[in-house]
Every structure is written in structure tokens, then in C-alpha cells.
């Protein structure tokens, strides 16, 4: 029963990791940009939700309805301005620019909100859970986040495979020049991909704020987990991201069960093991066209 609980709790955390990582994977897969400010964007989304929900009189639980579209718009604008400018210079500039953004965001948040933790108020729902067996408690919030992750990945999968714009995004990811030769304005396509990435990271940031507390510097450690998820699952594979998230979550729960201080260590060991044995990740695609 203890082991079942470890798997269940790991999967619940894993849902959050997957939601958090899919935007990072998309940005890297399509734009070839490693967004070092990805974690901070999630934190900003949390602060924006905390800021807006009392002012717009929307309950914290539903704040994502406003924040997610706002971040999609922000993603498009940031891509078409700051990130595109750095892509045009050279790939390494994007690392510097997103690292710079990360530093700026963290310090601005510290200046504005201090280092105190905040969370998104969802009332008594935070403590409620389903209790199917003696020691197994399934938090409704965590379950909702896992469900949201699955829904988001499913929607993203459908969008990328069935819609015209989705196909263009994949085309640009496969071969940017050939996509341009097929009439795609790749900057616009990049903007749309960034909008989706920012929307998902906003959702992840709000989920984080509901499940636990966040502070201006919370982005960094979560970004590390997101990288691990993407590497474990395989770059460019959406379902790999989900499996990677759940695998990391279970590994961490397992580590925590042995000794509370082994939680993060166990996740890192899984990450290194995958990197050593299967560097393309569990669902990674070998480049196929020679």
C-alpha cells in the first residue's frame, strides 16, 4: 500500500511537472531557444493571478481564465520583440538574453513583493482530498492539475497534428528554411509557438501557486525539474513530457520515502540514468531523414 501511495503521489506531482515542462519543450523544439526565464515566467503568472483576482473580483481558482490569455499575448509580443532579435543575432545570444530576463524578473519581483512566500487563495479546497484507502489521500487540487496537464497535452497534440497552423509549427520545427519556402512567415509561427508556451507556463505557475507557496526565486528550482522532465521524456515528444514528469515525480516520492532529504537526489539520479542509457529520452525521436 505504501508503494501504491508513492506511485500515486508521484504521478500527481508529475502532472504538474509535465504542465510546467511542455512550454519549455515547445520553445526548444520549435524556436531552438532554451528559455532560461521559463521558471520565472511561471512565478510572474502566479503574482499576476494574486494581483488581479481581488481587483477583478474573480476567485483565485478561476484566475487562470484571465491570466492564461494574457500570457499568450505576452508570449507573442516577447517573442516578436526581444527573443526574435536575439535569435537573429546568433543562438548563444538567446541564452544570454533569457538568462538576463530571468535575473531582471527575479529582482523586480523581490523589489515589489519582498521574498515572502505567496499563494493563490482557493479557500478550503486546498485541504480537501479523496480518501480511497487507509493511507492514500488524493488531493483534489493535485488531481485537477494532473487532469489539466493531460488535457493541455491532448489539446496541444490535436492542434499540432490536425490544424493548419499546428502543421506549420511542426514544419518550422523540422526545417525552418523549407517551411519558409512553403510560404510560412516563420517569425509569426515562432510567435504563435511562444504564445502557446507562455500560456501553458502561466497555467503551471497558477497551479503551483494553488498547491503550495511561491516566492520570487521559486522559478529556478522548478526550471531545473522541467529540464529533467524534458530530457527524461525526450525532446519534442508531448507524451514523453507527461511520462517524464510522472517518472520524475515517482522517483522523487520514492527518494523522499527512504529519507526526506533524498527527494531531489532520487530525481537527479533518474535523470542521469536516462541520460546515460538513453540520451534521446524515453520517447525521443532519432533524426530520421538523412
Amino acid at each position, binding site marked *: 500500500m505504501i508503494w501504491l501511495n508513492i506511485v500515486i503521489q508521484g504521478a500527481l506531482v508529475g502532472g504538474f511537472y509535465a504542465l510546467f515542462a511542455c512550454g519549455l519543450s515547445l520553445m526548444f523544439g520549435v524556436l531552438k531557444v532554451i528559455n532560461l526565464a521559463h521558471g520565472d515566467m511561471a512565478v510572474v503568472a502566479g503574482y499576476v493571478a494574486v494581483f488581479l483576482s481581488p481587483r477583478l473580483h474573480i476567485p483565485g481558482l478561476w484566475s487562470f481564465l484571465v491570466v492564461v490569455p494574457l500570457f499568450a499575448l505576452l508570449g507573442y509580443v516577447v517573442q516578436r520583440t526581444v527573443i526574435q532579435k536575439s535569435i537573429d543575432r546568433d543562438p548563444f545570444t538567446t541564452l544570454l538574453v533569457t538568462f538576463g530576463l530571468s535575473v531582471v524578473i527575479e529582482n523586480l519581483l523581490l523589489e515589489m513583493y519582498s521574498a515572502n512566500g505567496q499563494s493563490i487563495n482557493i479557500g478550503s479546497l486546498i485541504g480537501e482530498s479523496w480518501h480511497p484507502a487507509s493511507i492514500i489521500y488524493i488531493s483534489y487540487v493535485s488531481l485537477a492539475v494532473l487532469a489539466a496537464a493531460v488535457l493541455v497535452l491532448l489539446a496541444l497534440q490535436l492542434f499540432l497534428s490536425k490544424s*493548419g497552423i499546428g*502543421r*506549420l509549427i*511542426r*514544419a518550422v*520545427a*523540422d*526545417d525552418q*528554411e*523549407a*517551411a*519558409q*519556402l*512553403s*510560404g*510560412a*512567415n*516563420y517569425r509569426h509561427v515562432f510567435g504563435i509557438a511562444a504564445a502557446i508556451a507562455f500560456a501553458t507556463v502561466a497555467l503551471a505557475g497558477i497551479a503551483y501557486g494553488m498547491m503550495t507557496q511561491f516566492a520570487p526565486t521559486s522559478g529556478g528550482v522548478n526550471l531545473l525539474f522541467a529540464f529533467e522532465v524534458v530530457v527524461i521524456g525526450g525532446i*519534442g515528444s508531448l507524451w514523453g513530457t507527461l511520462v517524464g514528469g510522472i517518472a520524475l515525480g515517482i522517483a522523487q516520492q520514492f527518494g523522499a520515502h527512504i529519507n526526506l532529504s533524498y527527494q531531489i537526489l532520487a530525481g537527479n539520479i533518474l535523470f542521469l540514468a536516462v541520460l546515460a542509457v538513453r540520451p534521446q529520452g524515453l520517447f525521443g*525521436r532519432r*533524426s*530520421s*531523414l538523412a
Partner: protein
Amino acid sequence: MSAALLEVESLTVHHGQLCAIDDVSFTQRQGEVLAVVGANGAGKSTLLRTIAGLHRPTSGCVRLDGKDINDLSVSRRVALGISLVPEGRRLFSSMTLEENLQVGAYHANPGPFDIKRVYELFDWMPGRRKQSVWQLSGGEQQAVAIGRALVANPRVLLLDELSLGLAPIIIEKIYALVPEILAQGVSILIVEQDVSQGVSAADRVHCLLEGRTSMTGTPAELTSEEIDRAYFGAGLVAPAVTSGVVE
């Protein structure tokens, strides 16, 4: 066969320090097949890529219907009717055959070609439309690349090294399509390393040697010796060998 469609005027293109295209000019007329031939490194691909907008010229200009298109992006040029089938096919490797065509059709101009029409042109395609493109043979991939460009309904189709890495019989099949494409009002600019292919398909031939125009004319006007000389450079064709071939 009259109005100038695509004009290249005094075009010079550099790759860093290297001058890949040096003061090249030509005119492609409506409904014409123009072949640009030349050895490896003569600047043929650079020429096509510059026309398509993938390279910026150092000087000179490219005009479509008399309008300077130097400052337009690749996608804007596709919208105006310039489609390039790039060297090496460059298909979208994570996609199926049909998805590749759908990407080409997404920003298509109105015109005679759509995915259905391409399926008529290549009758093996419908049965394999759900296959990943990397499962196709080189010749089939080349056909998909041509189809992907055709569905955009270009006015001028730029074909870069169609024959590269393909068996002669496949090359022949692909070149057999040229009249059908022309019949739909699409002009064709071919770049070929394989001179005989380029020359036999073309109305006019333009030969490049180390980035410069070394010869231009219709296939009827040109002897194979003239073409050899223009292709390899004057001093490089040994007389004995040439006469040996003639006898």
C-alpha cells in the same frame, strides 16, 4: 512565350568573403524553361536561393513582373509566385506525405494545382499518403518536394538539382513532368549539374562558371563542345579527349 516574368540584373552575391555570384544577368520569359548549368561550386544553388529570398544579394536585383523584389521575405515571394524546390528535397521529416503537401497548400495562391491535382500527377501517392516521408525512396521524396512546391501555385518554379542522387530512370520520369507543369502556365527555372538533362528539357541554357556567366543560348544553337568549354572553363578541356569523343 513573350513577356519577361523573372529578371535577374547584375546580381552579385557573397558568402562572407567569397564571391559566389558575380554580375549575372538573365531574363526568364513567361512559359519558358530556362536551364542554368554549371559545375559544382559554380554558384547555381546560390543563384536560386537568392531568387527565392534565402540569400541577400550584395548588389544587383531580382525583379518579378518588372517589380524589384530584393527587400521581400521568402514567404512574400512565395505569395507572389516564386517557389523553390530546394536541393536535397528538404521534406518535413516528422510528417506524412500528405502533411507535407498540406503545409505547402496552407499559404497557396489560387490556381490549377491542389493536393488532388498532385495526386493525379503522381498516381502512386494517394495509396501512400499516410506514410512518413522518410519511408519513401529518394525519387519519391523528390516527387513530394515538387508537389509541395506546386500546390502553392507558383508562377515560376525553381528546381534545384533535381537529379542529385537519383537513378537515371527516375530522373527521366521526373523530367517527363516538365511539359505537364508548363501546360498549366508555370514557368520553370532549372539548375542542373547534369548538363544533358538540363539542356534537353530547356528552351534556353545559361551556363555559369565560377560565379560568372560563361555562355548563354538555345540548345539548338550550342554545340556540345561549346557547352563543355563554358562548363569547365576554356583551358580545362583537353583537345585530344574532345576530338576522341567526337570521332
